[in-house]
């Protein structure tokens, strides 16, 4: 399958949320924002998102309900909505998850992992192809943080994600917090896993905060970004220049100064990594 070349530069990003509207409007170094596609109407953009477009920021619609990893084929109406939001904001791409969110008519309310098997890969690839055919722009796929693992894995996460993007031609939304969470909670080395992800297919990178609870790392998006994740940002940029890095904060919103400091810390980690790149 032909692959879409990554030919945009997004820069520093932040997930747009109504509660962060003011702070993000004043964050001058932002190059892009991400909006939850299901949370906005295709014709009636929130004023803050319209203002961001006016300011020249790029907007990436981020879907959370397609359930591409589900047993059912993606729903036409959900795809139509995602496509129309992408057109409305003139998006360079859209993103969704390698996950299922419903089964047997019941909603999970969150992103659940798929078994890392060849069978799941077949179904996912078909679902992704259906989504790509319905979307006006390239699709990037994000691997999720999973507290529970399927017992019958035939490959590790980096291999599974690599095979999926190779088969579908999709781009990678690399979430370093999810990588950190899974490595910690399931006992493997995050850096060793990172180098085996398809880094040349990165559309952009997610970074979010989390918290350790009873020895388990929870990807809360309601806490500060932990040093281990910032370290992965640095390690990634020591390997390659990703087209964009975006901070996700969904709850327990911090004061504006704290949010900006976190954006700076991420940018600094990326810069340190680039400077230390072998051959740079």
């Amino acid at each position: 399958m032909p692959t879409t070349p990554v030919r945009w530069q997004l820069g520093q990003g932040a997930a747009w949320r109504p509660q962060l509207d003011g702070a993000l409007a004043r964050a001058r170094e932002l190059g892009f924002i991400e909006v939850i596609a299901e949370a906005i109407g295709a014709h009636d953009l929130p004023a803050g998102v319209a203002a961001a477009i006016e300011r020249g920021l790029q907007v990436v619609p981020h879907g959370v309900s397609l359930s591409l990893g589900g047993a059912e084929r993606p729903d036409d109406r959900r795809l139509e909505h995602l496509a129309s939001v992408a057109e409305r904001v003139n998006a360079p791409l859209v993103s969704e998850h390698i996950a299922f969110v419903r089964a047997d008519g019941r909603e999970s309310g969150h992103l659940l992992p798929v078994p890392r098997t060849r069978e799941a890969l077949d179904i996912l690839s078909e679902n992704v192809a259906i989504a790509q055919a319905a979307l006006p722009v390239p699709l990037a796929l994000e691997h999720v943080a999973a507290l529970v693992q399927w017992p019958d894995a035939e490959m590790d996460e980096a291999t599974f994600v690599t095979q999926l993007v190779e088969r579908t031609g999709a781009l990678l939304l690399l979430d370093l917090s999810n990588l950190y969470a899974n490595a910690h909670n399931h006992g493997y080395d995050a850096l060793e896993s990172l180098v085996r992800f398809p880094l040349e297919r990165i559309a952009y990178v997610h970074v979010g905060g989390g918290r350790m609870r009873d020895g388990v790392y929870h990807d809360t998006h309601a806490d500060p970004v932990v040093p281990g994740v910032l370290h992965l940002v640095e390690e990634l940029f020591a390997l390659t220049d990703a087209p964009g890095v975006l901070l996700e904060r969904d709850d327990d919103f911090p004061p504006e100064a704290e949010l900006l400091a976190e954006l700076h810390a991420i940018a600094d980690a990326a810069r340190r990594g680039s400077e230390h790149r072998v051959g740079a």
Partner: protein
Amino acid sequence: MPRGGEASTVSAPDREAYAARQAQLLDALLRGGEPPAGFDAAQAAAAGSSLRRKRARAVAQAWPALALQLGDTFGPCFDAFARAADAPASGGPLADGLAFARSLRHATPLDDDARVELLLTRAALRRRGIFVGAAWLRRPRRRLLVVARLPGLGVMHCSVPRRRPRPG
């Protein structure tokens, strides 16, 4: 590298078996029950309580008066409710909280603020037609709050004292 064309050869039974396995896992996570064979029970418990906590958080934000009344008991009360009842298919955290509030009413009488919240939410969730609801409030004095939602007019409310104040 496998070719993209292979994806289209997945037959319907594969999807059915896959659907059944996902439904089993989801059921265990939502209800907090035993996970399917092969799954780590501790991992499944952590994943299930994380789902219910996320749902509780959204309801607490949509129902501030109810969350304030329940205080520290909100979390455990909601968790028990969530294990027994899925989130409604539509209406989001407002509708989820409505079902939760109704499940509580016998065990935990709602205070005035939570009753007002419940009434206004019922009016807000009614998208079509007429809604009229009422609740007795206790403070500052006993009175009947009436909330109505009428097409084209939106939500209106008025309160009627139980007894007219005595003149002079």
